Structure formats: structure tokens, C-alpha cells
């Protein structure tokens, strides 16, 4: 067996590896591990009680009223995910295509589209909360100004439009990311390849469906996965725009808000429930990790070499 000798080289390597490992362990592995552990205990406020096994998980999944809250929040996340998939990624693709085909003003729009991405979510949330103000907000003022009074709604104040408005704001803010990734994917397609296709079809739609999309799809993998993770971790934007309760009447409640409320309490229900909260956190984490990992593997298989 080779003996591990403490030469200068091994010392050097050890010195480089240990600090980051320690940081990761303290600030990443330990919190995740302890959250996992917390989920198996009964909690009285911040006081740890007895080991209760899977009781907390059972509570949030099957005991009322938690079960229906969990379900409702989960459903909202699913709506958010699919809507953003269509609106954010779909529009992103179309924008990328327009930029790629050098429609007029492409240079300006390339920057404009990406600008909101670098704004902080907090700023975007506040900005749009103001924009959506039912009376003074520019959104409704514009609608009234152009005679579309019926569109002057309390967008964030009624159950039927609140979640949709949040989704819209998220898409507005993040559209630049899928656009840029798709654009990069399109720019990798050789010009002659596209010319070859143009020799065979004059339909832009066939071109997109049969040539451009299949060749860009691999770069979509990362966009899809990140959107998935983002949708199920959704927190900052709803927190800023509609508050911890997912108002009005929980119509914008999502897993992130629900977890936060459960674990840390809020104004209305001042109780903290670390046990149920941790169970929720673990479930969300597992769900995202498993689906994202599975999906990444699946999508990777489609990658095409140009």
C-alpha cells in the first residue's frame, strides 16, 4: 500500500481543498442536513420536542387544513411553471428568432430585452406593484386613456387576475434569459445549413419546426430546467407584490410562501411550526431535485452535434 507522504505538493493541495470544503460543509451541507433532521421532530416554537418519524410529512400531505393548503400552493406552482413555459420561453424563442433574422432594430432590442434581467427582483416587484395600482398605476391609466376601460382592473387585488399578473411580471423580467440562450443556439447554426433548407422550403414555419427548433433544442435544456427550478422555488416576486399570505384569499399562494408562513409564522397566524415547515422544505427540495435530475438526463440525450 502506498503511504501518503506529506510532501510539499500534498500539503499544498490539502491547503487548497480544505477551506472550500469546510465552507460548503458549514453553510450548505449542514443546513440541508439539519433541515432534513428537523423534519422528523416535533417542535414547540423554536424548542425541539420528540422524534416523531414521518408525522410532519403526513401532516402537510394528508391532514386538513394543511393538506388542502399544500395542494393549492402546489397547483399554483404548476400553473406558474406551465404559463411561464409558454409565455416566457415561447416568447423568448420568438424574440430570439426575430433578433437572429436581423429584423430592424435588432441591435437595440438585443440589449433592451436583457435589461430587466439585471434588475433586482425587489425593484421589479415594487415597480410593478406601483404600475398595477388600481387608480394611480400607469397600467390602468393607459387602458383608460385609450378607451379600454373594461381592462382597468384591480389586477393584483382580485383572485381572478392576481396570479396571472404575477406571471406576467415574471415573464417581463426574465424574458431576456431564454431569449439570449436561444439566440446563442441559433447563431451556432451554420448559414449554409439554413440556405440548404431554404432551397427546399419557403415556409418560415417549416424552417423553424424542422430545422431551427431541433438544432436549438439542446440549448433549451438549461432554460427548461432553470425555469422548472425557479417556478417551484418562486418566492421573492409574490412575497413583494402580494405578501406572505398570497393575497387575495390565497389566490397567489405558492409553496415558497406557504413554507415560509408555516416555518416562521406571519402577522395573522403568529405560530411558528418548524416541524411542518421543515417537512415542506424537504418535500419541495426532493421534488425539484428528482424531477430536475431526471429531466436533465432525458433532455441531454437529444443533444445534436453540429
Amino acid at each position, binding site marked *: 500500500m502506498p503511504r501518503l507522504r506529506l510532501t510539499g505538493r500534498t500539503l499544498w493541495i490539502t491547503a487548497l481543498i480544505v477551506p472550500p470544503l469546510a465552507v460548503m460543509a458549514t453553510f450548505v451541507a449542514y443546513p440541508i442536513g439539519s433541515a432534513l433532521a428537523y423534519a422528523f421532530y416535533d417542535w414547540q416554537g423554536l424548542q425541539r420536542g420528540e422524534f416523531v418519524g414521518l408525522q410532519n410529512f403526513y401532516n402537510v400531505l394528508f391532514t386538513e387544513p394543511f393538506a388542502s393548503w399544500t395542494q393549492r400552493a402546489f397547483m399554483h406552482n404548476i400553473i406558474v411553471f406551465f404559463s411561464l413555459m409558454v409565455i416566457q420561453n415561447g416568447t423568448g424563442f420568438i424574440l430570439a428568432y426575430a433578433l437572429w433574422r436581423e429584423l430592424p432594430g435588432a441591435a437595440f432590442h438585443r440589449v433592451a430585452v436583457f435589461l430587466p434581467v439585471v434588475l433586482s427582483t425587489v425593484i421589479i416587484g415594487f415597480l410593478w406593484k406601483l404600475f398595477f395600482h388600481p387608480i394611480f398605476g400607469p397600467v390602468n391609466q393607459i387602458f383608460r386613456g385609450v378607451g379600454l376601460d373594461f381592462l382597468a382592473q384591480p389586477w393584483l387585488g382580485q383572485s381572478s387576475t392576481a396570479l396571472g399578473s404575477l406571471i406576467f411580471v415574471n415573464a417581463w423580467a426574465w424574458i431576456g434569459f431564454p431569449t439570449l440562450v436561444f439566440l446563442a443556439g441559433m447563431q451556432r447554426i451554420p448559414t449554409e445549413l439554413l440556405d440548404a433548407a431554404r*432551397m427546399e422550403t419557403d415556409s418560415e414555419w417549416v424552417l423553424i419546426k424542422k430545422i431551427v427548433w431541433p438544432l436549438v433544442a439542446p440549448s433549451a435544456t438549461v432554460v427548461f430546467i432553470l425555469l422548472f427550478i425557479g417556478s417551484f422555488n418562486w418566492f421573492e416576486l409574490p412575497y413583494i407584490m402580494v405578501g406572505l399570505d398570497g393575497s387575495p384569499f390565497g389566490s397567489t399562494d405558492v409553496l415558497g410562501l406557504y413554507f415560509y408562513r408555516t416555518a416562521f409564522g406571519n402577522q395573522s397566524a403568529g405560530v411558528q411550526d418548524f416541524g411542518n415547515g421543515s417537512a415542506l422544505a424537504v418535500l419541495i427540495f426532493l421534488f425539484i431535485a428528482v424531477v430536475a435530475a431526471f429531466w436533465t438526463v432525458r433532455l441531454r440525450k437529444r443533444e*445534436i452535434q453540429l
Partner: protein
Amino acid sequence: MARLTLRNVKKRFKETEVLHGIDLEIRDREFVVFVGPSGCGKSTLLRLIAGLDPITEGSFHLNERMMNDVAPSKRGIAMVFQSYALYPHMDVYENMAFGVRLMGLPKEEIESRISEAARMLKMEELLKRKPRELSGGQRQRVAIGRALVRKPEVFLLDEPLSNLDAALRSEVRLEIAKLHREIGGTMIYVTHDQIEAMTLADKIVVMNNGRVEQVGSPRQLFEKPANSFVGTFIGSPKMTLVDVSRSGNRLGIADGGSVPLDELPDKTPHLKLGVRPDALTVKREAEDGFTASVVYTEYLGDDSYVYARLADGTLVAIRTHPNDIFEPDEAVRINLNGSPVHFFDAESGQRLEPSAVAAH
């Protein structure tokens, strides 16, 4: 039937004009080669014919039909690209089927066309492979096959051999010639290699700087180049141009000797003499001829080529018997051996026709 007519075709990219008015007539079933140095506008012209880039000015007719505004896919023209441009996400069969499916042909027709093309190009066993699993030569075949199955009236090929290694190049060249005989469509073939042009073409279009310098059969171009550019571009080793002055029936270089000729262009004191390597003789001892100093001798087995520098610094190539070996720096005399030579205007480079010189 496919007859192509280009009238005063110009192409500008933004401000830069790259084609300055091309007039060209291409007959049905002709094998036409566009040849010229890199950057002279061959690909651009081909892309205008394909419809991939719009024509800035002038017109392009296919048969009687004006094509300027017809979409590329509607022109009945297929193109083989320099990079092959196969669809990387489709296998060979799908690559060939893509276009014909869009043409709306019935399934059996598509299948029979593809299997026929696969047989002609000897690639039946490749149909299920993806482009990345093919060698350069195989990709080339697929690209040709993809054009073939569409049964176009006109085939365009842009430097189809440039990505192949030398051995494969002459093989594929022969196959393309054979293909043209078998399918009989009109073919337009772009290359910068004059040997490819000479061996393949019925008609060669020599281009330079966005202009057509001359159109003609390989023999016409070789025997009667319209100007000094075509003269030096066609033929290998190259024709040498010598700036000479006329005095009686002799053409001479200042302090560099002179040669007698029976036929000369009229009334031009200064002109360019164009001589190919096999129109010259080189001797150590001779009374007459251009004086020159040998630079090196290139031994090629069947012949040797002697490269020598004339008094005015022009490098001239002379074909000799392989046993005639000249040493560098040897002083020699160079004479015409009676084979045809060419005369070009000293300024414009245009061909000058000679006539018999009156005896003195």
C-alpha cells in the same frame, strides 16, 4: 428544358458592389463551370441564381420566366454546398426525403427516388447513418443525392471538391461528370481550380473582380484567351507575359534580346507577349533570342520545366526534355519554337489578333 439567361446582373451588399453587370446565357443540359480566383464573386453569382440572395439590378430568366422574385424552393433549382450543409439531426434517408416530402410527392415515389439516388451514388448502406458518422466523401455523396432526388432542372455546385483530399477529388470529379451524362440536367459548377474547370466543362465562365472575363469552351479559352487575365489563369504551368517592344518583325526587351515572328498585331509599338511553357525553347549557346538566367529546373519525369529570369526580371517557364538539366544562374537564350503565342494590349490586356508581317 432549362435555359438560363442573365442580363446585366448586379449585386451590391450595402455600398459595395461585388458583381458589376453579368450577362450570361446557359443552354439546356450544359455543364457550365464558373472559375476565377477566390473572392471574385462566383459564389455570389451562384447564390443569386439559387435565389438565396436578391438580385440588386438586372434580370435572371429561367426559360422564358423571370425569376428575380421567385422563392429559392420554387425555382426548380437544387444546390450542393461547399460545406455539404447536411441536416445534422436527420439521418441520410431523412436528409434526402426532407425536400421531396415538402414537394408533396407520394410516399412510394419518394422511396423509389431515394433508393435510385442511393444506388447511383453507391451509398445504399449509409441510409440510416447520421451525417456525423460519415466521412467527407460520403457526406459529399449525400449532399449530391439530396439534390438529385428533387429532380431539379438546374444543379448548382459550389466548390464541391474543396473539402476532399486530393485522391478523392479526382475520383469524385469523374463521378460528377458521369452523373451529368446520366441525368442530363443543366449543371453550374463553381471552382477556383482551372484544371477542374477544363476537365469538366462544356462551357467555362472565367470571372475576375465581379466581371465575366470570357465565356467559351475549354479549347477556346486555351487557344484564344480574350485577355491576359484569362491567358494566365487557364493552363498549367501558367502562361508568361512579357512586356515587349516591336521593331520590324521582331519583339524585344530593352537590353534583353529579341525574337523574330512571322505574324504580329498591327501598329502597336508596345505590347504583351503571352507564351506558354511549350512554346519556348531554351539553349545554352544561341545567337538569337531573349537573354535569361536560370533560376531552377523542375523535374517531373516526362518533362522538365526550366524557370529563368529575363533581363527585365520576368520569370518565364520553359518546357524541356527531362534530360536537359540547367544549373541555377546559367546564362541561356530563349526562343520561340513556332507554337502559337498570344498578343495582348499593353494597357488594357485585351487580345490582339496578329496578321502576317510584310517581308523586308
